[in-house]
């Protein structure tokens, strides 16, 4: 059965092949061909993932590492990073989620992107994303994880800005959103790469190590591990080394200091946390995700809800050994540790994003903030040590949030269709926005399938028994409560409130979109989307309903499964009081939403019924806590000022005008002037002219003799003769 694992490179290679086919032959294949190639590649990847799952299940969950090729090798520093695929229960879980949800979204996108002039390119990007994301989750070292991490960031950038060429301000807005996502992620990636380098510095390797044996085999493994860990450092992996180093109380040389390895691990985990806050959109770096909704809706569903943004949770879960070591080392008052900070950041994000989601008008923006909020749940879960709960919520959230986004896409599609119908392609009316929920209403009658699946997704998200969200969210709350302590209690309190918010804003959204009377002619003429779009929705809706069976309390399928690869996995305890309370809270929140929005979802002046009673609070929430404005003030503004200063003052005035004009050009001119005037004209010409003048004067003097009179020449000869005679005679006369 082990042989089946050797197929694992294909999960990356197949989407890669799909993207190459579409890249070079996309125009010729036509929309159908491109769609089939891309979706087929995604489907085959899913098939391989299922085979991996079957293989693991048949092998007592014991995975393996599949070497693929050599990659980075620097013998001088003992660096050797091969390109290896890791098949264990954690990576296969991610593969299943990514390729499974990915396949459905590929199919959906065939309908959604119909008629787009860059249809093939969209699918090239989607396949590239799939290959990158699968690299991220299947790599057996942090370097491969980082490559995937950066590649999905690139795909995110390309896909958010996919409609950069839309007319007018819209296109610029899309392209700015893409840049914003990319730049904000740089901050997190800085943390990632620092963490990876520090890991290599400390442990001499970035490998995850061999796949841990499931509990049944653990006894044999320990004998092996205890032996020569030092010599075979390469193959033991970071996590085993970390535990060993901590046990031996080693120190790590950093600059002139010797730092205890525990503190280095704290630093590594904090830097990884920074990476996770970027990619998984947590406080303080979540601001890019709402803007990322500028991309086409399938992108929002696949990348910005179901898969890419969960990379941070996967990464922390993968590094659970490091985080659990850091849990023993308080670094802040109240005994706060790194995982505690993770938990509080996650819970705070869940809370803040939940409040913002309650006061937005844009259908996708509500879902975006909801996604941030749910990612906060997952981060909080891994922070309180509930790795299984986090992964569980990751999986169920991938189902129902992808469902919600795709249904929202279907709604937008329908609204655009309706708008097209009434405007007859002629005039453009008063800034109609097909994503604004204020223009919707009453779609229940016109888009029945979309409405049903949307409501299923909303209830799953709200955590209503027995849908998927109920089980996973409940497990997170239970884990937080069991963790206790400062961080556990803060996280539990914030998460509980956030869970209430979740039910409230989903109730608000459903009531606004599907019930009441249509508030715009476009909503009256909206039509249901084609089957290629609705079928994936139905598939996801089924998953959202039954997703909970993955890890039912008492059965703990997922806990056992993940326990084989996540060292610190533990089965969550089911707390009936808590579960009942949470459900009650969700129901109360839904009832409240009905009370507020049930009769009249939007006031006559197109505002929220809560806007006037809440006043400034509502404005504050609608303004998204003014995070963007805050960053504008503390980061973007100063950056622009500095940038302008550097460009205008330093570069242009100082460097260009000052140095270039005043020093270089002026100096050149001065030297040139010197060479031309005093030197060339003065000295060189002086010499030449002087010679000429001397010769001229001599010539003038000589010319006087040459008068042309024969007699004067004769006279000269005569004088010469006299002279010669004198010269001859004088000695003779003197001598004699």
């Amino acid at each position, binding site marked *: 059965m082990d042989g089946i694992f050797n197929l694992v490179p294909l999960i990356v290679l197949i989407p890669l092949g799909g993207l190459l086919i579409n890249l070079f032959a996309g125009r010729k294949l036509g929309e159908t061909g491109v769609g089939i190639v891309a979706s087929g590649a995604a489907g085959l990847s899913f098939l391989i993932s299922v085979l991996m799952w079957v293989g693991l299940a048949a092998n007592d969950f014991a995975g393996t590492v599949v070497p693929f090729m050599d990659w980075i090798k620097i013998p001088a520093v003992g660096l050797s990073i091969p390109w290896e695929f890791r098949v264990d229960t954690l990576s296969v879980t991610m593969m299943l989620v990514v390729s499974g949800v990915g396949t459905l979204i590929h199919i959906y996108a065939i309908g959604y992107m119909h008629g787009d002039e860059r249809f093939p390119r969209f699918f090239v990007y989607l396949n590239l994303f799939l290959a990158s994301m699968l690299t991220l989750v299947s790599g057996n070292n942090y370097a491969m994880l980082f490559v995937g991490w950066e590649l999905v960031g690139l795909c995110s950038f390309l896909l958010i800005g996919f409609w950069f060429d839309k007319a007018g301000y819209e296109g610029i807005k899309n392209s700015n959103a893409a840049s914003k996502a990319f730049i904000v992620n740089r901050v997190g990636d800085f943390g990632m790469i620092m963490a990876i380098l520090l890991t290599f510095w400390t442990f001499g390797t970035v490998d995850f190590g061999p796949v841990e044996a499931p509990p049944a085999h653990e006894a044999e493994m320990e004998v092996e591990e205890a032996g020569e860990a030092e010599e075979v450092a390469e193959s033991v992996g970071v996590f085993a080394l970390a535990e060993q180093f901590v046990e031996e109380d080693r120190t790590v040389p950093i600059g002139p200091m010797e730092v205890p390895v525990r503190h280095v691990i704290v630093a590594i985990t904090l830097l990884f946390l920074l990476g996770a806050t970027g990619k998984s959109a947590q406080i303080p770096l979540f601001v890019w995700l709402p803007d990322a909704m500028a991309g086409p809706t399938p992108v929002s569903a696949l990348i910005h809800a179901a898969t890419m943004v969960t990379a941070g949770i996967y990464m922390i879960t993968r590094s659970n050994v490091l985080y659990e070591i850091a849990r023993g080392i308080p670094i802040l008052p109240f005994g706060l540790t790194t995982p505690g900070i993770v938990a509080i950041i996650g819970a705070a994000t869940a809370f803040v994003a939940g409040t913002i989601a309650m006061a937005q008008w844009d259908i996708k923006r509500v879902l975006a903030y909801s996604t941030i909020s749910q990612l906060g749940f997952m981060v909080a879960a891994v922070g309180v040590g509930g790795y299984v709960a986090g992964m569980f919520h990751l999986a169920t959230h991938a189902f129902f949030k992808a469902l919600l986004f795709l249904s929202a896409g279907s709604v937008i599609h329908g609204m655009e269709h309706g708008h097209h119908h009434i405007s007859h392609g002629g005039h453009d009316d008063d800034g109609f926005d097909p994503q604004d929920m204020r223009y919707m209403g009453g779609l229940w009658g016109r888009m029945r399938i979309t409405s049903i699946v949307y409501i299923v997704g909303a209830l799953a998200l709200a955590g209503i028994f027995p849908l998927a969200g109920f089980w996973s969210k409940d497990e997170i709350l239970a884990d937080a409560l069991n963790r206790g302590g400062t961080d556990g209690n803060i996280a539990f309190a914030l998460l509980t409130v956030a869970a209430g918010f979740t039910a409230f804003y989903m109730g608000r959204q459903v009531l606004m979109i599907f019930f009441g009377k249509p508030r715009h002619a476009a909503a009256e003429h909206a039509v249901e989307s084609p089957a290629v779009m609705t079928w994936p929705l139905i598939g996801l809706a089924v998953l959202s309903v039954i997703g909970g069976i993955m890890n039912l309390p008492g059965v703990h399928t997922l806990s056992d499964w993940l326990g084989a690869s996540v060292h610190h996995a533990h089965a969550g305890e089911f707390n009936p009081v808590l579960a009942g309370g949470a459900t009650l809270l969700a129901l109360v929140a839904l009832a409240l939403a009905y009370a507020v929005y049930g009769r009249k979802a939007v006031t006559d002046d197109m505002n929220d019924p809560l806007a006037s009673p809440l006043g400034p609070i509502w404005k504050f929430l609608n303004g998204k806590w003014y995070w963007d404005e805050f960053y504008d003030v503390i980061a973007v503004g100063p950056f622009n000022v500095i940038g302008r200063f550097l460009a205008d003052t330093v570069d242009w005035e100082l460097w260009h005008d000052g140095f270039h004009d005043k020093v270089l050009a002026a100096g050149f001119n001065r030297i040139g002037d010197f060479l031309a005037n005093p030197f060339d004209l003065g000295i060189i010409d002086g010499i030449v002219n002087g010679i000429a003048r001397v010769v001229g004067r001599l010539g003038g003097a000589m010319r006087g003799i040459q*008068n*042309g*009179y*024969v*007699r004067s020449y*004769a006279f000269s000869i*005569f004088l010469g003769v006299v002279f010669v005679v004198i010269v001859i005679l004088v000695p003779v006369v003197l001598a004699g």
Partner: protein
Amino acid sequence: MDQSAVNIGLYVILSGVLFTIGIVGVLVRRSAIMIFMAIELMLNSANLALVAFARQHGGVDGQIIAFLVMVIAAAEVAVGLTIIVAVFRRIKTVDVDKLHSLKG
């Protein structure tokens, strides 16, 4: 030789006077003919000195050179007169001060 001897000094003085006349003639006269004649005068004054010294010393060297000078002078006269005639034919004058152009 002694009895008929006139003092050698007189010959030399005569020769010098003739030579001086020749020189002055060359320097002051303008006519090519006159200059020519002055040159002949100088040649003959030299001949006179040569012959006188030869007689004084009893050798023949001076006389031989005197003959040589006469022969050359004869040749020179032939060439010189020819040139003068040719010049006169062309520019109708033998005034040497007018002959300052080499252009034909």
